[in-house]
């Protein structure tokens, strides 16, 4: 089994500060981290490797600093990591991102055929969830999104059973490998990294490729040029007016809420 996990470097939106003047994110204030969903994707690969054997590669497209998240992935249990980094990739929307990543995956699979690709459900910054399914299309392999469990991998029949979250429940799917999964956070808990992994990660140098290291690349499909979507404008939504403020002390305020609730009494006894 050769599993490739796609990992993205994102600003930590939990720590990030908002610039009160422009109402936008102050990127410098935010430490860059491994997209939390991608940590779960790497952990999923680790569990599969433990059960079925194999090797785990991680792949990221991003600035040179993104080597940090590849090291982080090695800490969780990846065996090796690839970073594709080039000015030509900059400004990519999801269509251009999936294009660049699929070209890198082509090269990786030439070195060692890929059985399974795992992505996060979405990245916490761009937050579209479109890159994974896009890659699957480009490689013409089945995508399974919103995965909450990989229940059964059969190396002989090359089929895998997967639980996929849907509205109000889940579905059990069987699909062919190679395939691409995008995972939800609830799929697993990230285990503490064993010491040897930490040591390996600290010393690890990822394999770094530029556009020129990839084959058959149509440069017009990369980066800003290859992106059909653009951000037209940013705006602060008009401030809503707000409603009625309830006065008095806490007792009075609670009483006014009770009155509102009593006016809607029918709601308490639905069904």
């Amino acid at each position, binding site marked *: 089994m050769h599993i490739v996990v796609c990992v993205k470097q994102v600003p930590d939106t939990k720590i990030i500060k908002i610039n009160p003047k422009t109402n936008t994110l102050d990127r410098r204030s935010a430490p860059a981290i491994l997209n939390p969903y991608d940590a779960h994707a790497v952990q999923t690969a680790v569990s599969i490797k433990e059960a079925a054997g194999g090797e785990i590669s991680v792949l990221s497209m991003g600035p040179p600093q993104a080597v940090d998240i590849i090291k982080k992935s090695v800490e969780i249990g990846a065996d090796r990591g690839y970073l594709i980094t080039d000015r030509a990739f900059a400004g990519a929307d999801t269509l251009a991102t999936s294009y660049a990543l699929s070209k890198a995956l082509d090269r990786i699979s030439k070195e060692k055929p890929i059985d399974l690709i795992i992505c996060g459900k979405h990245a916490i910054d761009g*937050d579209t969830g479109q890159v994974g399914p896009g890659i*699957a*299309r*480009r490689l013409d392999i089945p995508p399974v999104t919103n995965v909450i469990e990989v229940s059964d991998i059969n190396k002989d029949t090359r089929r895998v059973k997967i639980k996929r979250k849907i509205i109000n429940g889940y579905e059990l799917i*069987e699909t062919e490998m190679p395939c691409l999964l995008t995972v939800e956070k609830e799929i697993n808990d990230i285990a503490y990294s064993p010491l040897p992994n930490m040591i390996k990660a600290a010393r690890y140098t990822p394999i770094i490729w530029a556009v020129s290291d990839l084959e058959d690349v149509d440069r017009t499909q990369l980066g800003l040029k290859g992106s059909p*979507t653009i951000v037209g404008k940013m705006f602060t939504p008009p401030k809503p007016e707000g409603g009625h403020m309830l006065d008095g002390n806490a*007792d009075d*305020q609670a009483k006014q809420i009770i009155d509102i609730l009593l006016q809607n009494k029918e709601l308490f006894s639905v069904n």
Partner: protein
Amino acid sequence: MLDNRGVWVYVEQNEGVIEGVSLELLGAGRKLADKLEVPLAGILLGDNVRELAEEIIFYGADEVYVVESPVLKQYRTESYMKGVILLAEKYKPEIFLYGATPNGKDVASAVATDLSTGLTADTTMLDVEVEKRLLEASRPAFGGNIMATILCKKHRPQMATVRPKVMKALERDTARTGRVIEESLEIREEDMRTKVLEIVKDVTKKSLADAHIIVCGGKGMGDERNFGLIHELAGLLGAGVGGTRDVVEAGWLSHDHQIGQTGETVTPKIYFAIGISGAIQHLVGMKNSEIIIAINKDPNAPIFGVSTYGIVGDALEVLPILIKQFKEAFHEKGGEVTHA
């Protein structure tokens, strides 16, 4: 390529039932189509679903494109994607909207890749620039109370997924008429790589989206123990419990209780927002609730901007009093509260 015409809505059906978001999109699509003076079409895929076409017309469509096949009995990316691409390549719409549900996002991402066009994710506002026939799809941009309008100038169709419960469906109008166009899809089950073995509905877990009252707590509750007050009030009212992302990250609630951009979108009759600042990512998930009651100790908290009733105060003081008064009020009136 820019000659494409018409506004399309992907109509998601599950077991013969149309998803609410698809009806909402027919309402939103109707407005765009009227501005552009083009027909609005619903795209319907499935097995034996033709009879739903009429419903789609009642909710605003002029045309319904139907693809039926046993292979489409259950949603699968590979078959649904093929059906949608077939229609889009043949009839060339200029705007194509999908509900931002797991299946809607899934099929839209695959279709956008094949058509080599742009796809705006999780839109919460839609408009159109008539002269240039440009779809203006806006979504909350990460961090800050800010929205980004995403455009797709040079590629058609212009596609977007749209959050459930932010657009309004039209009244069902049985007097409306329209045209139904059927297409067939040449795929056989043997060619399918994916099988759906089983669909398991979680009936024990009542979806937050169905709750009539939701009590939602934020980081302002202080700690997990105090958050118990949120559960207590919700218990008394037979209401659903919600939380902000910060609350979920803190581990006070599981992710399926998160309300907002990366959680559920809800529109209950009554929504309590307690100790919640009102970041845009939270507001997009709840601001269309009918009555919003906010409690926050900061009078400038943005949550008061969307609230119907606001209390500036300490939730830890107000809530216990509210709970006590509620118990008394119902005791006095002899009212029985049956939990939903």
